[in-house]
């Protein structure tokens, strides 16, 4: 049952579906702190209860200009290799069961999206990309340089 549960959100100006088991929670950001000299997709740090999370800006990962983070912004919290990260979401739409199966990606994606998207899924008359949040965390060396 859990396999079919998805979070539908708009990240980096695109509606996507994230498998719910890859996600820890959706929270509201406190005031973030910048990390000088960090890779460009690191938008800062913020604390949630006593944990510190690294903010990731998906815009940069897919090749868009970075966006400013505001206090109160909603973020998708994920755990990758025992570290907590938060993806900045433009909008959180829904958590829902999607019964249709995931399908292979049809068509050509921009290189940024091609790296993070695993599959496609049909939801309420629209095709959504199924993305792996872990892929947002590790930026390929070429674009990090």
């Amino acid at each position, binding site marked *: 049952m859990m396999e079919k549960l998805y979070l539908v959100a708009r990240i980096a100006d695109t509606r996507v579906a994230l498998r719910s088991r890859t996600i820890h929670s959706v929270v509201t950001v406190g005031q973030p702190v910048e990390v000088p000299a*960090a890779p460009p997709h690191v938008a800062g*740090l913020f604390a949630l209860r006593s944990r510190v999370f690294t903010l990731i800006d998906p815009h940069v990962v897919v090749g868009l200009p970075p966006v400013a983070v505001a206090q109160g912004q909603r973020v998708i919290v994920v755990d990758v290799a025992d570290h907590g990260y938060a993806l900045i979401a433009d909008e959180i739409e829904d958590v829902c069961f999607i019964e249709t199966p995931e399908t292979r990606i049809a068509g050509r994606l921009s290189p940024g999206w091609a790296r993070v998207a695993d599959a496609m899924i049909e939801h309420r008359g629209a095709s959504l990309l199924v993305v792996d949040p872990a892929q947002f965390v590790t930026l390929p060396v070429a674009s990090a340089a």
Partner: protein
Amino acid sequence: MDDLLNDFLAETAEILAEAGGAIVAWEADPGDRERLDAIFRFVHTIKGSSGFLSLPRVTALSHAAEDALDQVRRGNRPANAALVTAILGIVDRLSLLCDALGNGGVEPAGDDADVIDALAFVSEEPAAPEPAEIRLRREDDLAAELQAWRSIRVPLPLLDSMMTGVTDIVLARNEFARMLREAGADPSTIAAFDRLSDSIAAMRQSVSQMRMQRIDKLFAPLPRIVRDLAQDLGKKIAFSTSGGEVELDREMMENIRDPLIHIVRNAVDHGIEPLDQRVAAGKGVTANLSVSARQSGNQIEIVVRDDGRGLSPDALVAKAVAAQVVTATEARGLTPRERLELIFRPGFSTAAKVTSISGRGVGMDIVKSNIEKIGGVVELRNEEGRGLTIILRVPMTLTIISGLMVRAAGQYFAIPRGAVREILLESSDSARVDRVGGGELVTVRGEQFPLLRLETILGRAVDADDDTDDRAVVIVRPGQGQSYALSVAAIHDHEELVIKPAAPLIMTTGLYAGTTLPDSGRPVLLLDVQGLLAAAGVDASEAGRNREEAAETEASARGATQLLLFRDASERVRGVRLSVIERVEEVPALALFESAGAIQAQIGDAIFPVHAAALPEGHGTVKLLRLHDGRSVLCYPIEAVIDIVRMPDAMQPAAAPGLIAGVALIGGDPVELIDPFWLMEQYETTRAAGAGPRRPLCRLADDADGWGENFLAPILRDAGYRVASDKESGDEAPDVLLCLSDDGDACANLGGDAPVIRLRASVAAAGADDDTIYRYDRQALLDALRRRVGGERR
């Protein structure tokens, strides 16, 4: 019952690990009463708990060990290697039993008579008479036991959740405090809140200490591992640890344990050479291996140092290419450092062959990735031929450190207080900032420090709101012998900080050592004071340091004369000054042969005299000490190298000059010392007359038809000359030139200053003034050579 058993197993496992180390240390110093008492308590504790749980085998084993140790404590029994080995045998058996208990829940049936008898057997040595005074052990033992074991076990996750809980309470308290201030609460409410606040701070302190453990625990199993491994491999190793009092987070410790053990095993197995090679390299037979820990700023540094053969970058490259870790083309482009770091590549293992000890599928790549996983680094310091030092630097993350909060580029950063030496203002009288050639340095009371500006290193602009005239300077000492000045916009305050590792993608910047949540509730980055230095590319080593070090090494090199102890072919222990030994050779027995009544050895392309009355029997190998007096070599056959010791001051000289110069007491036993002078003298005089240490060089000139090379040269060589032909004329000026052609002018310009002997093909001389020699007149030729070369030398 299960809980009791689990507690027993956990406790026993811990005790056994610690006991192994303690026993080995005790073996090295049997007089260490405290250590003995500690070991006694270990087994006593196990015996006590096992009796309670009715584990008869465990009880019997620990009882036997306790008995034997008690005999030692009473002075009835010596502490010797046999006893230690027997006790270690018991410790091993106990470990096995505990493993089985952990898996099956019941003590497996079996017989432990073998290990217990091993203990009894050694006790049959003549026992010292019972001392008049009988010590009662009960009181002091019991007191110590109460101290040592009054603790309980708590699962780590529980500690973690407590830690998180307390940190949350602190954050909530801060928020509450802000609200109270804003609402203007009355003094009694604030006083009550302050009391609460204080107890929360105290609680947070104790909770963080609960997670700390002395690094001793990590070192405890190492002596045992080194001892056993060294014994298996026939190596002698002096193992030492230091810095055991450094405290480290328990979880960190778990993460370091396996990598550390692997590195130590590697050092024993591959790093440290076999005895012979050590002697050949002019090192002590006993290798030194040390593990030390120290706190360096916000990091714990664990240093494993050996004085073995070190890493050979060329061998590593060859190996890596063979193992297809890199291609030959890639390999050529590697810097020396990158060559060394090949050992960290997956699929690479330095051992020429996989041994049972370290070739177990764990490579340095695993070590490195494990250390990096916890935000640490592995560093190599290689001195080829002289040893390898591996440094593990792990952050003190999850630990509480005292931090200095500084501001730069409009945000706060933390600097570990331990690395801060001094804080001053840029504008103060005691500091002077100079711009020198594009860099900056600050002079504080005559001492100069490179000046780094934090904003510059972080690539940020100076915040417009900050006062640029009154910046603060923090003198930072990131490690021993290094210091620099860090300029920041302002100093904020000191705070106790809980450090957690930052995400890998932040750690890889090399600028940060972790993150922390101060009372403000906003995350703060902890600066990596060593990393800042690397990022700035500044050499921060304190001046004069290297000079002192150099003086130290020189002093140790000048140390006392050393003596090589060996067992000769007739099983006698003898010694010879180490400095006259060129190396120890191991040659097949067939390489020794008898010639003209003397034993000779062929080693490589050379033949050396051997000091032996007869050829060795059998077809095995023979070990030869190569004595070298600067000119010639003499081989002395031995059975085995024993040790290298300091030359004793006193020696009983032999009555007459001979092979034995005298007898000295070494370790209480008389040892005959070889007289290298006499030895060399024997063979120097028996060597072919005229063929002294430096054999004259004859050059054959104009040897058109090869007669010189084929007919003449062997005779000359037999007579003790070296022969060079026209073709192989080297740089060395010949001592004599033999001209083989009748044409008088042929050799005119060849000889230089060397005397020339002309040979003629015809029996009859051409005339009265003909000084040529008939080429088959052996005697005349040798006489002429001796007159011109040998004669001048005498």
